[in-house]
């Protein structure tokens, strides 16, 4: 009886002062992380003040990012398809892979500079970074999990109970904090140390003659869509890919229902493009040379093909380029590779 009483007393102390944080678990102090905007970058679209990254929030986000518990089979983590060495894409995989060997229909996009993007995924289906993980987490062919299921699994892990308590004021394991932690991890993933950046910021690097020629060609032939220092104008366009009957991907139309958005996909950033092969929304093109060959000679006409690719008489023109010009453009594109980013230990699983 005395022993039981002891338990009751213990429980009571816990219950009656539930609002006092210190009585729960010994938690470590949290400190804020600095979110630094590179001097050659635009203002972020992500409102950092609403979810300021902290040391613990970042640590939690990273742990979640690499944790297979976010999927139904316990294996497929975010990091499974987003591998750092390849600017967080699924190296050589044409389409993303999911639980139990399921195959998706689209190529995993790179993850960097997400704090500067307006909308997410190939069709803009997520209008905010905090909401984007809902798509891969709940998709049957990706992680096939539910938030209810994940929260239950995380609550059973003492290290998560502790980390959530340290990272967030309300100390709760819930969808909001889970998504915020993932965002804190992802917004810190800034890639801004490529050779191109160092040239743009006048930090002493210079283009080779080949890269200079490629840069000038790029500016006249590609930069109307791959615009600005993020190398995307963030619009949705049909770039003349033939319809792949295996997927028959309707693109942006799935989000808006507008016929004018059929087969349109987001103009992707070209940062780290050397590493993120294969290319296009369905990973159909293996090399950068294949991509440029598509633009010069492989485009297919359709209702929604971007008018930029058309002649005044409405025949498809594509982007005329000689073989030499293609090589020069590829040389320039390789200056967008950021080795510091792909080797940055802060973002590494181990």
């Amino acid at each position, binding site marked *: 009886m005395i022993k039981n009483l002891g338990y009751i007393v213990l429980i009571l102390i816990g219950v*009656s002062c539930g609002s006092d944080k210190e009585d729960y678990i010994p938690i470590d102090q949290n400190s804020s992380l600095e979110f630094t905007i590179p001097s050659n970058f635009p203002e972020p679209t992500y409102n950092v003040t609403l979810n300021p990254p902290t040391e613990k929030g970042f640590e939690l986000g990273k742990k979640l990012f690499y944790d297979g518990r976010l999927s139904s089979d316990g294996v497929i983590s975010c990091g499974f398809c987003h591998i750092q060495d390849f600017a967080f894409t699924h190296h050589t995989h044409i389409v993303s892979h999911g639980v139990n060997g399921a195959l998706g229909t689209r190529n995993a996009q790179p993850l960097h500079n997400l704090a500067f993007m307006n*909308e997410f995924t190939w069709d803009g289906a997520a209008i*905010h970074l*905090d*909401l984007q993980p*809902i798509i891969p987490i*709940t998709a049957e062919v990706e992680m096939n999990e539910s*938030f209810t299921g994940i929260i239950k699994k995380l609550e059973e892990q003492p290290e998560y109970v502790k980390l959530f308590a340290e990272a967030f004021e309300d100390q709760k394991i*819930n*969808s909001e904090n889970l998504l915020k932690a993932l965002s804190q991890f992802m917004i810190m993933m800034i890639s801004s140390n490529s050779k191109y950046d160092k040239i743009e910021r006048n930090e002493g690097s210079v283009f080779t003659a080949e890269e200079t020629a490629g840069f000038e060609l790029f500016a006249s032939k590609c930069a109307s869509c791959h615009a600005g220092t993020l190398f995307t104008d963030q619009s949705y366009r049909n770039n003349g890919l033939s319809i792949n009957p295996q997927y028959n991907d309707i693109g942006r139309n799935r989000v808006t229902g507008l016929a004018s958005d059929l087969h349109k996909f987001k103009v992707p950033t070209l940062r780290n493009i050397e590493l993120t092969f294969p290319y296009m929304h369905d990973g159909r093109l293996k090399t950068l040379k294949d991509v440029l060959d598509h633009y010069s000679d492989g485009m297919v006409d359709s209702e929604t093909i971007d008018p930029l690719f058309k002649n005044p008489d409405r025949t498809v023109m594509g982007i005329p380029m000689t073989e030499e010009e293609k090589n020069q453009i590829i040389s320039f594109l390789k200056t967008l590779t950021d080795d510091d980013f792909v080797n940055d230990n802060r973002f590494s699983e181990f």
Partner: protein
Amino acid sequence: MKKFTLILLALITLISCKDDDPNMDNNPKFGSLDIDFINKVGANLLILDTESYNNQSNESYTISELKYIISNIVLIKENGDEFTYPVADSYFLINEEVSSSKKISLSNIDTGVYTKIKFGIGVDQSNYPLNGVANFIPTAEEQGMLWSWSAGYKFVKFEGSFTPQGGTSSDFLLHIGSHGEVLDNYKEVTLDISNTITIEDQTNSDLAIDTDVAKIFDSTNTHSLEQKSDVQVDPVNAPILAENISTMFSINNASN
């Protein structure tokens, strides 16, 4: 021994929470409010599956499912003062099939006399990220109110079967939500509470709202199911239906 336990219990509770209620006399006064959503077709209570109804396009229909999201509840006093219910706690899923879901309970409301209520139908995506909105995900997920591929909520789910005049029966499925950032179908409605509602300190009040789903078909706009019985991401019909949906609520003065 039992007595001893009780005393100890009382003591611990007293001691350990002595700081909880400072300045009790100066505390503002709060009451609570239950709002009942009474789903109807015209003047009659909605009956799922078995009851057949008619719309103005001469179509008869039965309803198998009705769900909608209520959010961002604001109570307004006669002088225009607003009491905004905490946004994070302000998401509710009304499901005709589950009676407990049709009564929403609000607590810690400033006392006073309120003459209007304002609320949203769906989720206000123009103000993302809204504090706490993501915590509604598990509920929406379990109730099939998440458009997972578009990372957004279905605001209204209305399903059943219909028969056009002289025709054969087929299913209808109306899912209304926003379409990315291109089309925002979130609506807010403000209802006059003609009898007023008084929130008193530590007292529970009741308010009833009628939801007339016949208005989904026939209100500001007329929607014929024969014309379009499957509305999901439909940039033409979804806004037409969303406009109708925003007219389907009224204060039920009989029970107020």
